[in-house]
């Protein structure tokens, strides 16, 4: 049978993948996608806890509410983030983080 630990492990591995992507990739769009993966990994563990900590045969819906709000905020975040990337591309003609180094020490 599938245990809570299995879900937490899978969610942690997805988080680690997103984390690696943020650290290793240098294309802003792909960094942004990895960020989304990390958000979704957190969502998966929230839903898993919500289901496994249910009472009276019902899942605990407070966790799923948090996931609902995270998804909404993430959708808004993607819109704003991509608008910023487009504005950046207009002024610099690049989405490579290594070419954007005016603040580099």
């Amino acid at each position, binding site marked *: 049978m599938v245990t809570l630990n299995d879900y937490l492990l899978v969610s942690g591995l997805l*988080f680690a*993948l997103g984390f690696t*992507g943020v650290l290793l990739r240098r294309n802003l769009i792909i960094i942004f996608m990895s960020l989304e993966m990390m958000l979704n990994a957190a969502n998966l563990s929230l839903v898993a806890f919500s289901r496994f900590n249910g009472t009276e045969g*019902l899942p605990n819906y407070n966790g799923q509410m948090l996931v609902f*709000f995270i998804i909404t*905020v993430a959708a808004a975040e993607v*819109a704003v983030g991509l608008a910023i990337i487009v504005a950046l591309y207009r002024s610099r003609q690049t989405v490579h983080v290594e070419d954007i180094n005016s603040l580099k020490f």
Partner: protein
Amino acid sequence: MSPILFWIFAALMLGFGLSVILQRNPVASALSLVVSFLGLAGLYVSLNAYFIGIIQILVYAGAVMVLFLFIIMLLDLKAEKRRKLNWPGVIGGGGIAVFFVVQLLTVLNRFPAGQRTLEPLAAPLDDVREVGNMLFSNYNFPFQVIGVLVLVASIGVVILSKRELK
């Protein structure tokens, strides 16, 4: 849900998640992320979170990823050229990720509450009704606040996308 289906969806999610960070072409990355999110939606359904699963497909695999593809098309991004790898960065980043996974395994091994399996539900679950009841009673105020947030975000995007600010 049978363990086989769980591991199939998990493998789908993790495999295509890996493909997101390995692909050189941003379009291939975005499409891999769509499949990864579909696998995740399968896991949500396996946890009886039907509403969240559908929202995941509609909002993430649908709207958000189309937005990503749209921006990739707009910026006309080509496959990245091979650049010299920054080895300290690669080793540091990979090392932190490996450290995180080892830490996670240690914690999970000492987490007896995590050995529970799924308890069967009392009755066929009326998931959307439960979510709606919760959303419009206990979480009514946050729900309205999030509406304002989405409005602010859409106005902000329009202003950011203007060519020059007055």
